[in-house]
């Protein structure tokens, strides 16, 4: 498991415990969420993204995720830093799983704790949107009749 912790980030909240990780282990959304709990917060908002069985009626058998891992961790760290600039949040946890995933298995978990619920919802939604746009991770969908590397939409495209 690649793991980084952010130290010394400015925040009004003491007791910081951000993390962003890439792992091939199965993800437990509830357990990840509880790691972002500071004493001054009363709510966590969690996004649990997982493998969908049907996309536009085409049946997916399983997925494979691959990452440019050191760059992915850097981009995750940037996203968390940007989230702190935009939202009043206390802690953020982002974990993305790599490798083969069966239907229903969790591929990504983003948990945000905040003193105010509203900020937690906003930051969590912003983080998943940006993660899908900027963090170098790719998924291959494997169907009965073939497989496709999914290509996202990105403002970074230069050609």
């Amino acid at each position, binding site marked *: 498991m690649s793991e980084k912790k952010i130290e010394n980030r400015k925040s009004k909240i003491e007791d910081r415990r951000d993390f962003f990780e890439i792992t091939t282990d199965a993800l437990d959304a509830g357990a990840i969420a509880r790691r972002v709990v500071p004493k001054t917060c009363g709510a966590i908002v969690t996004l649990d*993204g997982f493998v969908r069985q049907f996309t536009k009626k085409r049946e997916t058998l399983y997925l494979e995720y691959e*990452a440019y891992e050191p*760059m992915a961790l850097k981009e995750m760290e940037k996203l968390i830093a940007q989230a702190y600039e935009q939202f009043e949040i206390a802690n953020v946890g982002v974990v993305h799983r790599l490798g083969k995933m069966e239907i229903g298995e969790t*591929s990504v978990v983003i948990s945000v704790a905040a003193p105010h619920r509203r900020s937690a919802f906003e930051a969590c939604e912003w983080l998943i949107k940006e993660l899908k746009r900027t963090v170098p991770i*790719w998924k291959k969908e494997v169907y009965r009749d073939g497989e496709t590397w*999914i*290509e996202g939409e*990105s403002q970074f495209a230069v050609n």
Partner: protein
Amino acid sequence: MKVQVLFFGATAEATGKREIEVNMENGAKTGDVFQRVIANFPQLQKHTLLFALNQEYSKGNETIKNGDELAIFTAVSGG
């Protein structure tokens, strides 16, 4: 000057390689490297490509240094 170019996912599949080494003249820009790689692997042209230099997104205008780590990949699709 030698730089390393990494491929991932669709670009690794298209090129059949995970990584290549490219020899460039001094003063070359990252964009020059990317263009040369695409010329060598024209099958990459059918993808929307993103570029990175030393694990940061690149617009192709940086001057390369010996040992730089470049990467060519398709628009990301994690999550």
